[in-house]
Structure formats: structure tokens, C-alpha cells
């Protein structure tokens, strides 16, 4: 499993690649191949992640970044429209700011 070297901060393109890797692990390579994942990909709509997949995605973020990023807490403070429109770019920015 990935462990964090707390001295290195990832830049946004590294975070994006890492998120892409997490998504692939969660929903399966076969299904990822059929979609184009970009910073604009919406989480629930384009990536079609269900709540259980989002939970395991959140777990991966927690395991990788540890306490410094409260991804679940951040999500739970969103309203419905924010959740519907949540895209990968927003998540990448959030993580970049939290580091």
C-alpha cells in the first residue's frame, strides 16, 4: 500500500493521476477503459460511482494521505447540487490545498 512521505507535496497533475488510479482500483480497469477520465469528469454522473464505490474511494484517500485530509467530512458538508456537480478537478484542488 502507498505510504505517505509527509515531506513531499504532490502537484495537481500528480494528484490527478493518483485519483485516476484510485478510481480504477474501485470500479475496475475494464470499466475505466470505456470512459475518458478528465478533470471535468463528474463523480456521480460521468464516472457513475455509487455510494459504496465513493466510500471505498474515500478510504483510499484516507489511507494515502492520513489525517491531513478529511475527505468524508468535506463531502458530508455538501448540498445535493454540489454533490451532483462534483468533478475530479474540484477534488484535486481540495487535496492540493489541504496538503
Amino acid at each position: 500500500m502507498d505510504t505517505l512521505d509527509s515531506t513531499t507535496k504532490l502537484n495537481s497533475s500528480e494528484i490527478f493521476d493518483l485519483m485516476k488510479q484510485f478510481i480504477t482500483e474501485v470500479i475496475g480497469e475494464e470499466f475505466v477503459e470505456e470512459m475518458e477520465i478528465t478533470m471535468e469528469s463528474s463523480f456521480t454522473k460521468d464516472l457513475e460511482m455509487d455510494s459504496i464505490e465513493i466510500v471505498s474511494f474515500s478510504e483510499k484517500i484516507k489511507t494515502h494521505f492520513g489525517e491531513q485530509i478529511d475527505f468524508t467530512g468535506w463531502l458530508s458538508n455538501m448540498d445535493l447540487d454540489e454533490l451532483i456537480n462534483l468533478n475530479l478537478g474540484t477534488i484535486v484542488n481540495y487535496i492540493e490545498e489541504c496538503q
Partner: protein
Amino acid sequence: MSKFLFVVPPFFGHISPTLSIGASLIARGHEVKWLGVIPVDAKHIPEGGAYIYPEADLAEYREELQQILKRQDDGPACSGPEVMKLALEETYVPIARIMMKGLGRFVDTWQPDVIVNDCITFAGALLAHIRGIPSVTTTPVPPDVMGDTANSAPKIFEWQENLVKSLQREFKVYGDDIVIHSRKLNLVFTSPEFAGIENPEPHMKFVGPVKGRPNHAAFDWARLERATTPKVFVSLGTLLVDIRAAFFQKLIDAFADAPVTIVAATNPDIFEKWPDNFIVNGFVPQAELMPMMDMVICHGGFNTVNDTFMNGLPMLITPIAYDHFHTAKLIENAGCGIKIRYKRLRIEDLKNAVFELLENPQYRNAALRIKETFIAAGGNDKAVQLLEEFAAAEQELVTFN
């Protein structure tokens, strides 16, 4: 004897358990009627009961209602948060608004002693509150399907509360209380063990599955008897018309001429030809069929889930939308089935899951444990007892006052 009015939505899965309880109430000598916003064929209504469709009062909402019903086809393509919007904002609240006039008029004429509203049919409890009539709620799905939003998603909880309160205010119910569900008695058609609820609120009564609604569907029993391979019942329920062909094509790809007999409840017209080991009927006598099956494949419609575990059968659940994901999680927690999300359904996984469920006894054993909790919950007898006690207590209250 009491008069019970069931207020139901235009979705058969929610109407179905009320028909079963209604039949039991009629057998005990009570008067029972149903009221809803779409016509329901008389063959579904228990003998001695009646279904009221207040056509004249609904006339002005005809188009809006058609749009709401059509909008349901979008459900499978919606994400979780979009489904929440579709359900509450675009379906339940407007249907409540549409029902109020016809419901009010009928209630004033017939004067029921108890109004029983289905959990997504808010008009029933709302009108009961306005008229001062005792009300009970029926919940055909495990409660808590949207999760504990009050604690886990405060903004979504606030959105839910605001939608309901603004509906209530439209009908001059002010204040902070939510009155679209009964706070006195809520009959839930599953067991607390299966629903994963440890300390239910006292008015939430888990009575387990109920049965006995009329079902006159014909079936080729002789053909089923000739089948020698394990029997797999497949149902997609009554909604989700659009994805039917795609779903059954996957089943054909996986199981055409495989050593299983597929008994499918779907309109056979979707394909010109079915494999020989598929027995396909538009309508089936599901309650009679189920004891003869070895396992079930379904998307998670709650009546089929109940029928499955009442018969101690393992299930492959392929959740598509709505509350299916919640139900799938409960099934995985109980160990009585395997979940493969419909959107991630691969033919190979479908095959493996079915043979695993047929061959590995652990799933069937877990299903039998759920069956025991369902039977212990009491079913029709318990539901009727609770309703009679409730009606009597409320009657006494009226006399006393």
C-alpha cells in the same frame, strides 16, 4: 369494526403489501378501501374492498401526473444525489399536492376511522393531520434508505425538511413538526435484524413480509415440473421498463443452454425467441412459484426480496437505482446473497455468482436465518393486531374526549 383507508402511490411495489394487509382486515370484518392517483385493475383488489380513483378531482393534474410517471424512467440513469431529487422533489411532493383535493373529498364522504398512508404518499398522513383522523404509515422498504442525513449530511437533511415543510405550509400546516408520516404507528415490512436497525423508535413496528394479495396469473406448471436443472427465478419488478431488454440479453448470454432453468417474470415480447431453458411470462404467481425455486436474481425490488428470504433462498442482487443499493448492502451484511451492480455486470461474473450461490450452502443457510427473523416478526397477523389495537385505542380517546 373499523373503516380503513389506504392511501397509495402510483407504484405497484408500494401498493402490493397494503393489498395483503387489506385482505386480512376484510377477512376480520373491517371495511377497507384504497385511494390512489392512477386506475388499478379490479383484479388486484381483495374481494370486499374497493379502489377509489378520484378521476374528476385529478383532471386538472392529468398532464403533470403523466410527466411525473414518465420521469421515473430516468431513474436508472441518475446518480445517487440526482435520484434523491427525482424522488422527493419531483415525485413524492408533487404527488401529495395532486392528491389532496380528491382525497379530501372522499374522506369527507366516507369518513374512515383510520387513514393508512404509504411512506412515500405524504397526502394520506397530511390530510389525516388536517382532519384530525388517526393515521398509520406503511413502509415497504427498510427504513433509513437515504441514510442518517441528519448527522451525516446536514445540508441534505435541511433540504428534505424544507421541501416537506413547504408542502405542509401550502395546506396551512404551520410549525416545525413533520406530519407526512404517522408518529404513532409505522408498519415496516421487514425484520429489524435484516434492516440492521438495533433500537427502533417505539412507533416503528417491524412486522416482516405480508402475503395474501390476489394474484390470478396463470402459469405452465407442467413445464416447470419437467425441468431437471436448478431453478433460478428472475424478476425486474414493475418499473424499469427501458432497461428490460438489455438486462435479459445479459442473462441469455450467460445462461442460454447452461445447466439451469431460468424462470423470468417479464413480457416475452422483448425477444423473438428465448432459449429452451428459459420459461418467460409477463405475469407470474410469484408467491406460489417461489417455494419451487433454488435461487433468485433481482435488482432489489423489495417485494421480491421479501418473497426470496421468506422462502430461504439465496439471491444475486443487481442494484440499478433508488433504494436498491441500500438493500444490496443489507443482503451482503446478512450473507444471504451476492451483489453485482447492474452497471458493472459482466457475463462471466454473472455466471460465477449464480453457480456460487447454487453450490455454496453458506448463502442458503444465511437466507434461512433471515427467514426465521421474518417469521418471528409476525406478518399479516401481527399487522392486523397492531391496526386493530390502534383503531380501538384511538376510538376510546374520541369517546373519552
